[in-house]
C-alpha cells in the first residue's frame, strides 16, 4: 500500500514534469489563450462606447431639418461634420474617413432624409446602429413637422442575469476564454497518450507491474494543475489589464471546474483511442474544439446563432461548461438548478467518453 502511494506520487511528478517541460504546452496552453484573450479584449472588450463620424450635407431649411440636426448633435455619439458638399462627403465615405453621410431633403417641408453608408461595411454593427439612429432621428423630425406629440416612446435597458449591474462584454469574454482554454487543455492534453503508444512506451509500461489506473489518475492530476495555472493567469490579466469584473461563487466555480476538467479529459481520452497518429489526434481535436468555440457561446451569445444551429449548441459540452463557469465567476449565481444541469450534462459527456474509450483500448489490446 505504501509503495502504491509512492508510485502515484512518482507518476504524478513525472507527468507534471513531462507537461511543463514541453514547449508546445507552454505555447498552446499558456501563451495562446493569453494572446487570444488580449486580441479579443482589444477588439471587442472596450468600454462599450459607440461613436461614429457622420457628415450632414444639404440646406437646413425648415424646422424639421433643423430638429433633425439638433437631435443628431444631442445623441452625443455622433461626431458631425457639416461644412462639406455632397461630393467631398461621398469621397470621404468611400475612403472610410467617415462612417456615414446624411443628406437633408431639398425642400424644407417634404422629401427624404438620405442615409449613405459604405457598402463594404453594410453588415457591420456600426452601420446597423447608424441605421437605427437615423430612423429615430427621422421620426423626431416627423413629429416636429406634424406637430404631434408622441403617444409612446421606447426606452431600452439592458438586463442581465448578474447581480452586478456593471457587467460588461469583457466579463463575458474573460469567463468564456477561461472555459475555452480549460476545455482545450483537456481535449489536446491527451496527445501524450498517442505519443507513448506510438513510441512503444505504453507497451514497455505493460511489461512492468505498474498500475495503469494510477498512471491515468496522475495524468488527470497534471491536467488539473495546468488548468489552475490557466485560470489564475487569465483572471489576473483580464481583471488588471481590461478591468473585467468577477463575482465568484466559490463552490459553483470549483464544482464546474472539476467536473468540466474531467469531462474534457475524457473527451481527449476518447480521441486518443480512435487516432493512430499524433497528426490524426490533433486534426480531430482541432475540429471538435473549433466547432465548439463558435457554437458554445464563447465569443457570441448562443441565442444570436441561427435557429437551425441552436439545437447543436444545446448538446455540446462546452455550452454547459461555459455557462457554469460564468455562473461561478461572473454572475455570482449560487448552487442553483442551472449549475446542477450543467454538471449533469458534463458528467454524462465525461462518463460516456471514458467508457467508450476504455472499451476501444481493451478491444485494441486484445487484438494485438
Amino acid at each position: 500500500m505504501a509503495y502504491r502511494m509512492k508510485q502515484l506520487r512518482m507518476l504524478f511528478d513525472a507527468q507534471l514534469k513531462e507537461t511543463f517541460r514541453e514547449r508546445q504546452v507552454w505555447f498552446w496552453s499558456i501563451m495562446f489563450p493569453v494572446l487570444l484573450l488580449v486580441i479579443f479584449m482589444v477588439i471587442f472588450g472596450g468600454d462599450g462606447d459607440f461613436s461614429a463620424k457622420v457628415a450632414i450635407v444639404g440646406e437646413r431649411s425648415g424646422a424639421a431639418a433643423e430638429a433633425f440636426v439638433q437631435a443628431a448633435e444631442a445623441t452625443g455619439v455622433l461626431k458631425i461634420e457639416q461644412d462639406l458638399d455632397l461630393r467631398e462627403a461621398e469621397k470621404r465615405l468611400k475612403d472610410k474617413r467617415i462612417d456615414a453621410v446624411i443628406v437633408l431633403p431639398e425642400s424644407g417641408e417634404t422629401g427624404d432624409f438620405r442615409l449613405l453608408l459604405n457598402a463594404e461595411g453594410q453588415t457591420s454593427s456600426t452601420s446597423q446602429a447608424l441605421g437605427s439612429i437615423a430612423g429615430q432621428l427621422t421620426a423626431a423630425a416627423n413629429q416636429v413637422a406634424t406637430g404631434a406629440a408622441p403617444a409612446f416612446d421606447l426606452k431600452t435597458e439592458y438586463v442581465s442575469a448578474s447581480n452586478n449591474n456593471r457587467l460588461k462584454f469583457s466579463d463575458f469574454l474573460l469567463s468564456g476564454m477561461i472555459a475555452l482554454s480549460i476545455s482545450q487543455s483537456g481535449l489536446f492534453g491527451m496527445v501524450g497518450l498517442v505519443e507513448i503508444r506510438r513510441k512503444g512506451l505504453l507497451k514497455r509500461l505493460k511489461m512492468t507491474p505498474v498500475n495503469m489506473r494510477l498512471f491515468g489518475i496522475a495524468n488527470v492530476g497534471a491536467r488539473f494543475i495546468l488548468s489552475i495555472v490557466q485560470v489564475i493567469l487569465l483572471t489576473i490579466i483580464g481583471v488588471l489589464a481590461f478591468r473585467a469584473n468577477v463575482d465568484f461563487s466559490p463552490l459553483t466555480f470549483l464544482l464546474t471546474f472539476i467536473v468540466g476538467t474531467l469531462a474534457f479529459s475524457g473527451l481527449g481520452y476518447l480521441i486518443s483511442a480512435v487516432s493512430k497518429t499524433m497528426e490524426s489526434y490533433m486534426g480531430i481535436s482541432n475540429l471538435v474544439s473549433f466547432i465548439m468555440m463558435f457554437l458554445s457561446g464563447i465569443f457570441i451569445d448562443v441565442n444570436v446563432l441561427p435557429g437551425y444551429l441552436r439545437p447543436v449548441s444545446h448538446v455540446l459540452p462546452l455550452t454547459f461548461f461555459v455557462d457554469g463557469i460564468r455562473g461561478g465567476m461572473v454572475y455570482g449565481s449560487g448552487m442553483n438548478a442551472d449549475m446542477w444541469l450543467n454538471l449533469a450534462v458534463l458528467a454524462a459527456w465525461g462518463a460516456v467518453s471514458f467508457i467508450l474509450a476504455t472499451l476501444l483500448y481493451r478491444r485494441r489490446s486484445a487484438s494485438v
Partner: protein
Amino acid sequence: MHVLEVSRVSKSFGSVRAVQEVSFAANRGEVFTIIGPNGAGKTTTLEMIEGLQRPDSGAITVLGMTWDKDAENIKMRIGVQPQSSALFDLLTVEENLALFASFYDRHRPVPEIMELINLTDHRRKMVKTLSGGQKQRLAIGLGLINDPDIIFLDEPTTGLDPQARRNIWDIVLKLREIGKTTVLTTHYMEEAEQLSDRVCIIDQGRVVAMDTPKALIGRLTREREIHLKFESDAAAADAEGAARTEPHATRVERNGEHLRIRSGKPEATMYHLLGFASGNGLSIEQVSIREMSLEDVFIAFTGKEWRD
C-alpha cells in the same frame, strides 16, 4: 535448472506463420542468444515470453510460473529492454530510473544502476538530449532496476556505431559475471559469438540449430580456406600446380598473385605449399587461414547466404 522453458510454441498472424513449434530452455546464469535474419520470428518469440503476445499453441514457463496464473509475479521478477528504446523523453536519466523503480516492490539503488550502465556523468540530462547508444544503455538500465532474475534484451545493438556496440557488450559481460540470466536477440553473428554461452539459430519461424557457438562451428566440416599472396603472377601460377597435386586440397582458385585453396586438412596442405615455395625460391607476401564462424554455420544449416 531451467529459468525459462519454451515448448512447441507457435504463433500466426493471419496467413503468416511467424513462429512454428519453437522449443528451447535457458539455464540460470547463462547468456542465451536467439539469432536469425530480420523477420525470422525473434521478436515475436520474445514478446510471447514477455507476456505481450499469447501463443496460438505451446507452453511457456518463466521462473516456473505461467502468464495465465502469475502475470503480476512474473513482471516483478523479469527485466525487459524492448527493440524501440521507449523512455520518458522529457525526464532525466535519473528521473526515468527512479520512476521505474517505483513500479516494483523491491529495486536496486538508482546510483548503482547508473554506474553499471556508465551514465552517472549524464544523470541530470534529459533523455531527448542523449545519443542513441546512451538511450539504449538507459533502456537496459530500466530493465535492471528491479534486480530481475532474467533480463531480456531485444536487439540491443542494432543501429549503433562500433564503439557504442562495444559499450553494450561490456554491460552484457558484466551481467554474466554477476550471474544474471540474459536472453538476447541479435542479427549480428559476431555479437552472438562473442557474448553467448549458447546460441539458438532461428530461420523462418523455426529453430534450425542450438548449442554453444564452439560446438556449432565444430559441427561443420573441418574444411578451411587458405589464402596465399605471392610476389608475382608467375610465382602464384607455379604454386597453383603444386596445390592441385596436394591430396587434401578440394578446390584451388587463382586470381593473379592470389591463391585460394580449400582443404580438409589445412595444416598438411600449408606445410606442403610452404615447402614447395622455399624449395623453388618463390617468395610469399601474405598467409592466412580463415576460421569458420557462426555465419558459416547459418549457411550450412539453411543453405542461404547470411545478410546483416
